[in-house]
């Protein structure tokens, strides 16, 4: 009860979650996913998806422009590296804050509309940011080449203290170089904090009000709530998560490019969220991990690997399967992604978490069918009395 103000069940969830994240390098080993680059991606995109879910999952507002926040977070982080210090703490703070500011601006305008108009407005804003980053803002974003940290950048704080790294600059956490596993553990810590905040929001009256807005916004207004500030806060919070994810991308690799802001990146986070389960706590992270995992595996496949995989088959069958599967792997990973997108929306709009729940409940229902039967009986009785 007293544990970070969580209920016993949530405290348990939190402990298991934290343990699972921190021990990921061990238990992901059998899946071949235990190397730091991929683990970092899991944590970063998990954070991105958690944040997106606070908006889409709780309020039902589908933003198609969250990549803009990812991008601005990245650019700010690189500039924090360049101007202030290679220490990652200021980068994370500034990146998250600027993303929050941009979210205030975009949210203030976009939230005047709902439904598809909101989606299109956010998409339009994100495309605007993307186009600007490529063109006029080149002095800040370095256009197509991308923005990177150079050895002779000012780094005022570092020079003041007199700690200047040798070689190409790497993010630094008070002496820990943000590479490999230390970088993963930094991202993992951010993910755990992010998850904790999201858990608290889900369990708060604020979270309940957001869900009520999703369910019936008109009624919320007639119930005495000014819904717009609630929505704006949800939007800004989720934008800040995206910004933090953007800074973490830079923390692990001090480079920012405009393609990070493209709307396909916005679409990817939507897919992660719906794949795992919109509005669920763990779903978005699950979705992010699965997508990054399969992206990694599938992209590495080429025809030779495929022939290896299907080598147990007779030759003609092997060739047949390789031909079928080939367009979906390697360069064709996006084809798999698009197909997955459709399959999930068509067959499992609630995402994997809901799928599990449904399976689980069906089994539970079978077990307690007697109890259900008696409930039906009382319901019938009530109807009978009502008809009298």
């Amino acid at each position, binding site marked *: 009860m007293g544990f970070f103000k969580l209920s016993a069940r949530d405290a348990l969830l939190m402990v298991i979650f934290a343990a699972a994240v921190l021990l990921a390098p061990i238990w992901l080993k059998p899946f071949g996913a235990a190397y730091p680059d991929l683990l970092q991606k899991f944590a970063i995109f998990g954070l991105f998806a958690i944040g997106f879910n606070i908006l889409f999952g709780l309020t*039902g507002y*589908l933003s*198609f422009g969250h990549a803009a926040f990812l991008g601005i977070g990245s650019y700010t982080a690189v500039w924090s590296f360049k101007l202030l210090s290679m220490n990652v703490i200021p980068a994370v703070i500034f990146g998250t804050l600027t993303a929050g500011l941009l979210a205030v601006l975009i949210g203030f*305008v976009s939230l*005047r*509309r*709902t*439904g*598809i*108009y909101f*989606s*299109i*407005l956010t*998409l*339009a*804003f994100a*495309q*605007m940011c993307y*186009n*600007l980053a*490529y*063109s*006029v*803002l080149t002095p800040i974003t370095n256009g197509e080449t991308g923005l990177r940290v150079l050895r002779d950048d000012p780094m005022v704080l570092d020079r003041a203290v007199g700690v200047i790294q040798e070689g190409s600059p790497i993010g630094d956490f008070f002496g820990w170089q943000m590479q490999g596993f230390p970088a993963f553990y930094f991202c993992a810590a951010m993910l755990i904090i992010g998850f904790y905040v999201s858990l608290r929001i889900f369990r708060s009256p604020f979270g309940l009000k957001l869900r009520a807005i999703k369910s019936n916004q008109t009624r919320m207004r007639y119930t005495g709530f000014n819904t717009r500030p609630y929505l704006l806060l949800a939007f800004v919070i989720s934008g800040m998560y995206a910004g933090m994810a953007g800074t973490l991308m830079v923390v692990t690799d001090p480079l920012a490019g405009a393609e990070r802001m493209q*709307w396909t990146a916005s*679409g990817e986070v*939507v*897919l992660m969220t*719906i794949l795992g389960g919109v509005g669920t706590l763990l779903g978005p992270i699950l979705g992010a991990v699965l997508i990054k995992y399969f992206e990694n595996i599938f992209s590495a496949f080429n025809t030779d690997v495929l022939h290896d995989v299907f080598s147990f088959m007779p030759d003609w069958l092997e060739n047949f399967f390789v031909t079928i599967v080939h*367009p979906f792997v390697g*360069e*064709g990973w*996006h*084809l798999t*992604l*698009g*197909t*997955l*997108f*459709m399959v999930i*929306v*068509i067959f499992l*709009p609630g995402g994997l978490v809901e799928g599990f729940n449904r399976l689980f409940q069906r089994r539970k229902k079978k077990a307690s069918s007697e109890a259900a039967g008696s409930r039906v009986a009382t319901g019938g009785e009530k109807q009978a009395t009502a008809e009298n």
Partner: protein
Amino acid sequence: MDAIFLQILNGLDKGGAYALIALGLTLVFGTLGVVNFAHGALFMLGAFCAVTFQKLLTLSKQVKDESITFFDAYKEIPYLEIWLGDTGAAIIDWAVPLSIFMAIPVMLVIGLIMERGLIQYFYKRSHAEQILVTFGLAIVLQEIVKSFFGANPIPTPAPDIIAGSANVGAWFGLGDSVVYPYWRMIYLVFALIVIGSVFAFLQFTTFGMVVRAGMADRETVTLLGIDVERRFTIVFGIAAIVAGLAGVMYTPILPPDYHIGMDFLVLSFVVVVVGGMGSLPGAVAAGFLLGILQSFASMNEIKSIFPGIDQIIIYLVAVVVLLVRPRGLMGRKGVMED
């Protein structure tokens, strides 16, 4: 004056493409109530119809090159030229316009398959789910095209005879600087003809009347016992043809690559929103308007005052319109005004 006239001309052909795509989007949204993020992919498929047609026509046979005598040299000669001689060469030259005849049935079939196979199951689901599933479909379609045609733009030239530019300025008594490529002019005329035929079809046929009634009030029309759904399937097919033709004819202006559809789609959505969700004249007017605005914004004089304005003008207009007049320029009151 000349410069302004030129910019208007330059905006018109792009505006024509926007208008054609937005027209289909609006038709589909107004009748089926579906927000189709895969509509841009139809434009792209149309463009690749032209590419495929051109590839088919230029299927070649290796022939020994007689003009080189030192060693055995081979050159590729298209079968058409071998069989038909100069006529064959002319047909190949005219591949893009001719591919319209292939594109119409192909796009119709694609449209019908898409509607019956997927879209019809999403009539009753939320707009968010419609957006997501069609977004997925768009990715799938463009990736399929990518795996067949590669990632690079494929040049598909206009026929030689109309490859040059017209001195439009002279026609209107303006300076010689106003030149305008023939093909863009053809595109504009073509767009106007297609738009005109769609409007005429909706205005003067009983089928069109039912569709218009369905757009105005679907429930009532259904209550009248008219099978709206089957007609709407055909409407989707028509929208697919319109988008496809827009794509076919655009290939000489911009060599198509697999993501051309997405690029146009985002802009076309903005066009639809500016024009007014569900308003066909609005979509057309906004298409041309935004095309011209974009063309003006890319003038150096304007860019020097507002740097980068050419990149964002369309989105900026959309934002302003949505805030000031949420139903768009010509949208009906109450249609998705929230």
